[in-house]
């Protein structure tokens, strides 16, 4: 290729003041993401304040005397103003300290929330990624095939199967899989209760059924999103112009359409990973999998506020972070922003 001209071109993209507009836009997005997270932290805190009942009552039970309740509340610092507790909590979080779990406090001086949440979070991430590794390539390929044959018989077949899975609740899919594969065929264990010492091979083996359940629920979504965005792309005039200049459809899709869709594809991927991580509670329940969803449900029941807060904030951070990542991919692959006039 012509080196001289290459030099000219990169020189062209670096003018425009001293900061590339791309950097400015991405910095702006980062700031917004941080502000959104801050807003979410307020909402989480306020929502938990409004929750009826508290840890003291749920520990002491129905017959607790008001004095005993007050004593525990004072002990935990729950009697101080909410604003002060929020700021304390927030400054702790900013330093990486999510506080101490309320349950088990009396017994051994309390476990830190991070200690409780981190292994569970790891489990959930692993499950979500495994599900995505199965679902995404399959769904994307089916979506691509449907989009290329849009309106045709293959498209309609793929779409109706996808719709059927969208309509089926995940616990039903989970129990059906357990019944057929674990109970009837005996191929895989029905429960996925892994511990910290479970060897990796065994762990993955136990995770196959929950991951399959999640995949089946998410495949339909990914497929339909892929089909919609690629169809729109395929109908652009330049896709027709490519065919008219003699580029076969398959090559036009690979060389031109897919690179142009990278922003959208990143978006679909991020959206569904976020959905998997924050939406696995039901599946974790069905398979007794020790993920963060289970932990959060248990913590809500026992009014273990620091744990609930941490879980909710992590969910929010995952959601915002993944969407931010998708946004950045979309911005960084937009030729208009990449190569300004």
């Amino acid at each position, binding site marked *: 290729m012509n080196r001289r*001209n290459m030099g000219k071109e990169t020189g062209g993209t670096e003018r425009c003041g001293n900061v590339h507009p791309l950097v400015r836009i991405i910095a702006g997005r980062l700031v917004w993401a941080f502000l959104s997270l801050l807003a979410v932290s307020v909402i989480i805190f306020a929502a938990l304040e409004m929750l009826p009942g508290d840890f003291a009552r749920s520990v002491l039970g129905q017959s607790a005397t008001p004095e005993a309740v007050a004593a525990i509340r004072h002990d935990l610092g729950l009697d101080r103003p909410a604003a002060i507790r929020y700021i304390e909590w927030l400054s702790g979080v900013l330093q990486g300290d999510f506080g101490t779990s309320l349950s088990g406090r009396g017994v051994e001086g309390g476990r830190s929330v991070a200690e409780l949440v981190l292994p569970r979070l790891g489990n959930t991430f692993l499950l979500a990624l495994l599900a995505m590794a199965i679902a995404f390539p399959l769904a994307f390929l089916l979506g691509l095939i449907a989009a290329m044959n849009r309106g045709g018989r293959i498209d309609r077949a793929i779409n109706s199967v996808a719709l059927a899975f969208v309509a089926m609740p995940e616990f039903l899919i989970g129990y059906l899989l357990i019944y057929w594969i674990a109970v009837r065929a005996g191929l895989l264990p029905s429960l996925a209760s892994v511990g910290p010492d479970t060897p990796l091979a065994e762990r993955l083996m136990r995770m196959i059924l929950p991951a399959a359940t999640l995949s089946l629920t998410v495949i339909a979504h990914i497929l339909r999103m892929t089909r919609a965005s690629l169809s729109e792309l395929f109908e652009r005039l*330049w896709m*027709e112009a490519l065919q*008219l*200049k003699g580029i*076969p459809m398959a*090559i036009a899709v690979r060389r031109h359409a897919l*690179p142009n869709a990278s922003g959208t594809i990143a978006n679909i991927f991020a959206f569904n990973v976020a959905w998997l991580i924050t939406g696995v509670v039901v599946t974790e329940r069905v398979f007794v999998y020790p993920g963060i969803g289970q932990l959060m449900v248990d913590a809500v029941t026992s009014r273990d506020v620091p744990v609930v807060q941490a879980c909710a904030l992590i969910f929010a951070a995952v959601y915002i972070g993944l969407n931010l990542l998708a946004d950045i991919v979309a911005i960084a692959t937009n*030729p*208009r922003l990449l190569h300004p006039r």
Partner: protein
Amino acid sequence: MGVDARTLVSMRDLVIRRASDDRPVLDGINLRIRSGEVVGLVGESGSGKTTLGLALLGRIRPGLERIRGHVRLEGEDLFSVPAAELAALRTARLGYVAQNALEAFDPAWRLLRQTTEAALLHGLMGERTATNAATSLYGELGLPDPEELGWRYPHQVSGGQLQRIMLAMATLNAPDLIVFDEPTTALDTSTQETVLKAVRRLLRKSGAAALYITHDLSLVTRIAQRICVLHRGRIVEDAPAEEIVHRPRHPYTRALWGVAAGVRRSRPVPEQPLLELRGIRTGYGTGPDILHDVSLQLARGRTLAVVGESGSGKTTLGRVIAGLLPPRAGEMLLDGEPLPPRLKDRTQEMRRRIQFLHQSADGALNPSHDVFMILSRPLALFHELSGRAAQQRAEELLEMVDLPPDILHRRAARLSGGQKQRLALARALAAEPDVLICDEVTSALDAVLRNGILQLLNRIQERTGTAILFITHDLSAVRAIADEMIVMHEGQAVEAGSCADVLKAPQSEHTRRLLAASGAGSSRFMPAGQ
């Protein structure tokens, strides 16, 4: 028959119809193009021109189906060759230039790579040869800095340049047949002239045959030896260009010619200007100034044309008046009162008094709304009309723009291009504006429809006294509609005055160039007395 006169491509009894409603788009087309022959295809929008052009390349768009007939390229049936072979044929022997080059390039690829892609893919040239050939074609087409241009992305060059790069792409492999689908329609007059000259030069040099599709009969006579007139999916007239010009037989062809009609009668100039701009300077974001010190006056009941090529700032001027782009300096007065620069600072009444009509009615109308919904919104917003009263007023508005009342409950997506532009006009009129800004409203329409809209605007102005700011690059439209005109060039008003004066005795060099570019097209073949 000599060697040159052999048939290159033939279309026999081709019938293509819409799959959804069985409506025929092409209804039994017979067409033969000999080697090296340039055939013009003229027709209004919706006549099937593009479908015919694409069929010549073996392409039928989704949603259409071929009922019968075939297209043969030297005996080879394009509808029955295998896909791989068709792709190779398209690269080596067929060329295509789309109407809208802005949308015909992959936005993420450099232009040179797109120009040479097909040649490299099918192994017609090596990379170095292809690059050199493309670069020298860019130069021949009068593109600036051809060495560097190919390294840019589509959004980094202008519409006229993209159109010429598309010409280069279509001719790189020395095809036998090139289909031009309205290659100059979206361009301004002087760019149009440059592209047209480039097309002529390329055709003469390469000796390729061509089908040149357009709605502009006077333009096609300058390029084609034979002209076919397409009307509702049928070729109603097929004759040498000379004959179409001097002895048009079909009534539709005669209607196409009768377009330059309607010269404005002069009217007294009212004393006080309705809208006045003083020393407007503006630009986008932190970029350079697009407009430098532009002033103008528009009086009640008058039409002021703002003329210039693309990039001259005329659309920006419209946006400033509409309140979409605040000026950096200067002031605007409406009836002597200062007009706030931003739309959000204007009162409801000010918004009602200034209405904007877009170039693309397609983009300005919600396709899933029906006609009544579209008209009832301004009626409710500005005049608090609803129910029976709104319906009655909507019907009056439709009548005002010559649309039948029975389309009131049809969705906008189901209207034709001309109907949509009329509907957009009716919506603007629903506000009963004092000033109507028309931004290139006729440039996407064919000659017959354009003439209709111009006459309509004249009639409406007579009835309502609305002042019109008519932004255009089309001087023949200016003749038909405007009282005064200003000529824009690089963000400055280089000339202003009454239309009669400016058109008769232009003062600025730039105006003379614009006139020369458009005059060549309209006067030469215009039959007298029409």
